[in-house]
């Protein structure tokens, strides 16, 4: 039987889902977005009122702003088993945010290319696979 896929930290993206989306906060007053979710709008001119903030799923498509291929293995508490070099990217999404995330591949990454959000496994135990959000290059 297939193992259950569990987010390493729950509450950052819609899950379980066929089309997962990152969960952001949007300010109803000024339209600013924040990821992960926040209690208050970070705009210095907005009132600090929790009622102004709504949780919204972000578009799961975006454009690669920049990336790196990380070849060194980070220390605990980062876990990837087995370890292999991985990509990390900053992606511009249509809501006007720039969002961090790993990439599904280290091959053929390009600034400006279209990407979509998906999930990928970093490690597993006897019951579960532990997943995070990842940016996947798409042909356009």
């Amino acid at each position, binding site marked *: 039987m297939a193992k259950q896929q569990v987010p390493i930290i729950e509450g950052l993206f819609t899950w379980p889902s066929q089309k997962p989306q990152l969960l952001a906060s949007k300010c109803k007053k000024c339209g600013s977005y924040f990821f992960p979710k926040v209690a208050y709008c970070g705009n*210095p001119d907005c009132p600090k009122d929790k009622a102004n903030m709504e949780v919204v799923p972000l578009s799961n498509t975006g454009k690669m702003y920049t990336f790196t291929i990380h070849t*060194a293995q980070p220390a605990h508490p*980062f876990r990837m088993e087995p370890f292999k070099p991985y990509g990390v990217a900053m992606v511009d999404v249509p809501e006007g945010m720039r969002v961090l995330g790993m990439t599904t591949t280290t091959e053929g990454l390009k600034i400006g290319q279209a990407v979509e959000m998906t999930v990928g496994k970093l490690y597993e135990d006897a019951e579960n696979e532990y997943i995070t959000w990842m940016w996947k290059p798409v042909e356009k």
Partner: protein
Amino acid sequence: MKPMREVAIVGIGQHPWGQFPEKSMQDMGVECIVSALKDANMSWRDIQSAAFGAYMWIADRGGVPSLLMGTSIARMMGETGIPMVNCVNACASGQAILREAVLAVASGHVDTAIAIAADKSAGGFFRPQLRDASPTKFDRGGENDTDYIRFCMTGETNPAYWAMELRRRMYDVGTTDEVLAMAKHMTSEGAVHNPYARYRKVFTMEEIQASKYIADPLRLFEICATSDGAAAVIVTTMENAKKYSKKPLLVKAITIGTPTFGDPTIRLTFCSAFPRPGVPDLSESRNAIKAIYKMSGLQPADIDIIELPDNSSWHYLVYLECILGLKTGEADKMLMSGKVHPITGELPVCSGGGVAAQGEAVVAQGLSQVCQLVRQMRGECGEGQVKKTKLVNGLAQTYGYAGNNAACILHKAW
């Protein structure tokens, strides 16, 4: 409110940077205080106020006594009942506590104050301090830690962030591998005769370009190591300064920089940015630089020597541009021209080899830069002394995690 008084640096003490497993941070701090007091012809009882760097990695070592560094060092120096504050502004802490000491004197609160930072950051990548495995649910709220999230969920280490900024720079303005290697090579020539540097050797272009990628396009030798280090700086009123030092350095300006809302940078420890029109990247750094020029009435052309935060080759380039008000890409040409050579340049930059040659001892880093400026401006660096003789205004800027920055301008006052 009374007008502020002019404040000068009259004593410095520095511990070499490196790895010192046989010493505690407090031991290193005491050594620096003793040498700073000697440099200023003062005794511990002359110090009326003290600001300390609070150690950041207390989950790994040092514990609460190193977070509450002030009273923990006072137990060794001898408790004298003076005001002490512990501050943590990431890598910008050193200059942040110097600002505290300067303001204590400038305001008339006291006449003589000290800033002290001691740090043991040696030992690899910085990582989250959260050790509790509980934040597996983001919605637990109070336990949210974006540093933990970015590290565990995106694998973003500090070099990963720097490498991403660098790759975008290469795409935008064509910065080359050769330029990156040159930033390390050239600064390393300043480290050879700096007794406080950890790596006192010249790194050749070949060995830098042959070093492995840590986070492509940044190579091992283009990223600073993490080190142990400590430093102390004593300040007093300009009026009294000549009693303590033949060569006092006036603190012409000192400030802490923080970001402007809408900065497009996804700063370290965060997972996103919401860029807004007209807000520049690295706004915390630009805000600090703008403020010290305004306070001092000086301009980039007035600066004779610079200590910038070359935590990586990318930093070297962007901070040279930030400090001198250059367009993106112009630092590459300036570097390659040799104008900013640490020893022979007409504008010496990172005269002692910079952060690249020291390795970063987080909270002490800013004070190390200030100590290096003071030694150069006094003309005390021996074989490592810059060739330039007109050293009237020196500028130091420190880069920190999570939007923490600090900068100062020192002015020859004898």
